[in-house]
């Protein structure tokens, strides 16, 4: 039995799921820190946000981290699909009556569905901002790509699709919230990090993170829409 056994094993897929997932949690913090600058109004906010966007797309270390992030997203999705396929095969005939709510949380039983919603959101989200910032035709401001104006215009009531976009954004953040509330503490469990002393703290942190981060993300488009009415 060699190390090869580790790569083939079901547990290896769990470790990968946990490591990529927890890394993506740290990515969310970085992303949120930037987004929060959208609360700063006027040219001051515009400059701060554009500088942040410039830094995120050009600074070498951040660029390296961004490639790691893309890889983690892909791994997390592919690994998740592989695990789901295997899990479905493990119960070819289902129950006539099954009471999952009696023994487990809704989020924990629907991580695949929640992940799919997040993935769909991610495609639309990256097309709207990431693709435009990297490869699209961007307006300029003070010699920097003016992502601030693009974001504000997208969530402005003048955009006929803005209301749908805001609703979709909030919905996706709700899915992310459920996904994180289970996923955060689940990642630690998969890696074998569990102890009566510190597991309650991990669970509490996961809950706060899973509710707090998506909530802050979701407030921003609502704020941008309302303030531009």
């Amino acid at each position, binding site marked *: 039995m060699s190390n090869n056994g580790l790569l083939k094993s079901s547990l290896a897929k769990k470790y990968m799921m946990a490591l990529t997932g927890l890394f993506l949690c740290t990515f969310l913090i970085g992303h949120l820190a930037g987004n929060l600058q959208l609360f700063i109004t006027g040219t001051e906010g515009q400059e701060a946000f554009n500088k942040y966007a410039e830094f995120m797309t050009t600074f070498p270390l951040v660029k390296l981290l961004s490639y790691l992030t893309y890889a983690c997203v892909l791994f997390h999705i592919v690994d998740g699909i592989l695990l789901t396929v295997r899990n479905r095969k493990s119960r070819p005939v289902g129950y006539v009556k099954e009471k999952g709510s009696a023994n*487990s949380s809704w989020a924990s039983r629907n991580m695949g569905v929640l992940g799919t919603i997040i993935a769909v959101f991610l495609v639309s989200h990256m097309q709207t901002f990431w693709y435009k910032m990297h490869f699209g035709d961007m307006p300029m401001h003070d010699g920097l790509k003016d992502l601030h104006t693009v974001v504000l215009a997208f969530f402005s009531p003048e955009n006929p699709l803005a209301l749908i976009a805001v609703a979709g954004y909030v919905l996706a953040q709700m899915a992310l919230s459920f996904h994180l509330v289970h996923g955060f503490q689940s990642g630690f469990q998969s890696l*074998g990090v569990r*102890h009566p002393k510190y597991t309650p703290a991990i669970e509490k942190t996961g809950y706060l993170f899973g509710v707090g981060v998506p909530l802050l993300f979701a407030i921003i488009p609502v704020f941008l829409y309302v303030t531009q009415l």
Partner: protein
Amino acid sequence: MDLTLNIWRQKGPDDKGHIEKYPVSGVSPDMSFLEMMDMLNDRIIREGGDPVAFDHDCREGICGMCSMFINGQAHGPNRGVTTCQLHMRSFKDGDDITIEPWRAAAFPVVKDLTVNRSAFDRIIQSGGYVSVNTSGETLDANAIPVPKPQADEAFSAATCIGCGACVASCKNASAMLFVSAKVSQFALLPQGQPERALRVKRMVEQMDEEGFGNCTNTGACSVECPKGIDLTNIARMNRDFLKSSVDS
């Protein structure tokens, strides 16, 4: 009590199987669930029918043979009990009760509510033991000091009776609670150390080979486990497996 039972009937492994309705009356609230099943079978036999096949042995909640999925839950609605320790007072007069076999690719149905759980035996055979010299010079068990907290934890892992409720309850039909309990009961004791790394590797490999699903940490297994085996055991197995894979 008058009840309506919806029971999974399946003639054999290759039969498609179906749910059949059985109205039963005169059930005493003091009967155990299995006694109620005995009563039904007695009637079916008198009527010249084929009795419902189900597993059972000690009827004291310690052998791990009984295995019914009752109203959507392994061993029925109560916590910390096997089906044989479930009593009809946990139901109401007029209730509809759906009874199904454990569902997992690794637990094929033999007949009706009886499933083949040999996959668990093969996992144990792959490493769930401590190799000892039985030449007649066996050491006295008390010669090896074991701290009380470790002894208690090992014992609580060892209370797993291998009934398979964890697999049946898991939405992925994962056997990780069972395997981790069997890994832990040795991993926590000095006697289990020499084979610790090899044991966890072999048992996890066998678990995968049997076709059990992956753990998604829903925690359903531990909630439905009649012995209350804790998720800490799964974390310990995850840790040990990672360590053994990196070490060797």
